[in-house]
């Protein structure tokens, strides 16, 4: 009987040593790390916008990350495991926004170049058309007038 109790104690001790530890609350450092990822993502988003990129989806993702951090802080005392998961999700969202912002920035730069070239080409086309009208406008106008009214006969009004 004593041997059985000792064996049970040893087995119980071994199980306790290998059991998953209880969830621990998130710390200020954890929150700071998530906020740091969000702030870096915001800086990248701002740069992408300055390059002419459409950052609507990035802004939505950043707000989701911010709300996850606030949710994690609110539920930390009641459900630390969920708080930890939310904080991790927020951190990952921030990192994905940073990664995605590079593509948004490149697309914005290309679009800005296209708009610039289109503006220059449009202005040049208008100038060429104006120059052609200036040089050949009179000739074309006279040719059209003859085509439209050349067959008209002129007669005296009184007899």
């Amino acid at each position, binding site marked *: 009987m004593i041997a059985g109790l000792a064996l049970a104690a040893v087995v119980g001790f071994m199980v306790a040593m290998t059991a998953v530890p209880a969830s621990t609350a998130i710390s200020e450092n954890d929150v700071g790390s998530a906020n740091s990822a969000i*702030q870096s993502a*915001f*800086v990248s*988003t*701002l740069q992408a*916008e*300055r390059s002419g990129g459409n*950052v*609507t989806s990035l*802004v939505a993702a*950043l*707000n989701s990350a*911010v709300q996850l*951090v*606030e949710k994690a802080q609110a539920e930390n005392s009641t459900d630390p495991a969920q708080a930890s998961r939310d904080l991790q999700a927020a951190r990952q969202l921030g990192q994905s926004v940073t990664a995605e912002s590079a593509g948004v920035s490149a697309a914005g730069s290309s679009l800005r170049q296209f*708009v*610039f070239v289109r*503006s*220059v080409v*449009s*202005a040049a086309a*208008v*100038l060429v058309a*104006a*120059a052609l009208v*200036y040089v050949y*406008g*009179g000739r074309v106008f006279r040719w059209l007038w003859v085509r439209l009214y050349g067959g008209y006969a002129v007669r005296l009004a009184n007899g």
Partner: protein
Amino acid sequence: MDKGTATLALVVVTILAVFVAVQPLLPSSVEPFSELGMLGPTQEVGGYPTSLTIGQQFLLYGYVGNHEGVVSYYQVLIKLGNQSTVMSNSTYANAPIVSTYSLVLDDNQTSTFPITLSVGHAGTDLRLIFELWSFNTTTSQFGYTGLWNQLFINVTS
């Protein structure tokens, strides 16, 4: 059309063409600004609580608008001050923070969000102070924008 008139017309067309071509490339000339507002429980101006008991929860709505020309990262800090708390559009309140709300807004975007608060101690003419802070990418910190609102409340036990 004589030569002089034709030349004048060509000059006018040239100026107009350059003016139109440059328009998409010019930056906005509107002065940038942010907005901060506090709305009552029905999301309208008014209906603000004035008398509360300790721990009693009440609902307000915060309103933030971004017209800075770029995406901005805001924090709304809600502090509990009293009659001696000093603050202005250049000095933020030196008072304990009751709650914090963070949000990112694109240019010309606004947001209205619920704020649930309670006060943990009694007092007369307590001031709920709402401040708008904005993330500064140069300092990597939030900075006070100078925009603030306040709500006077009396809290009894």
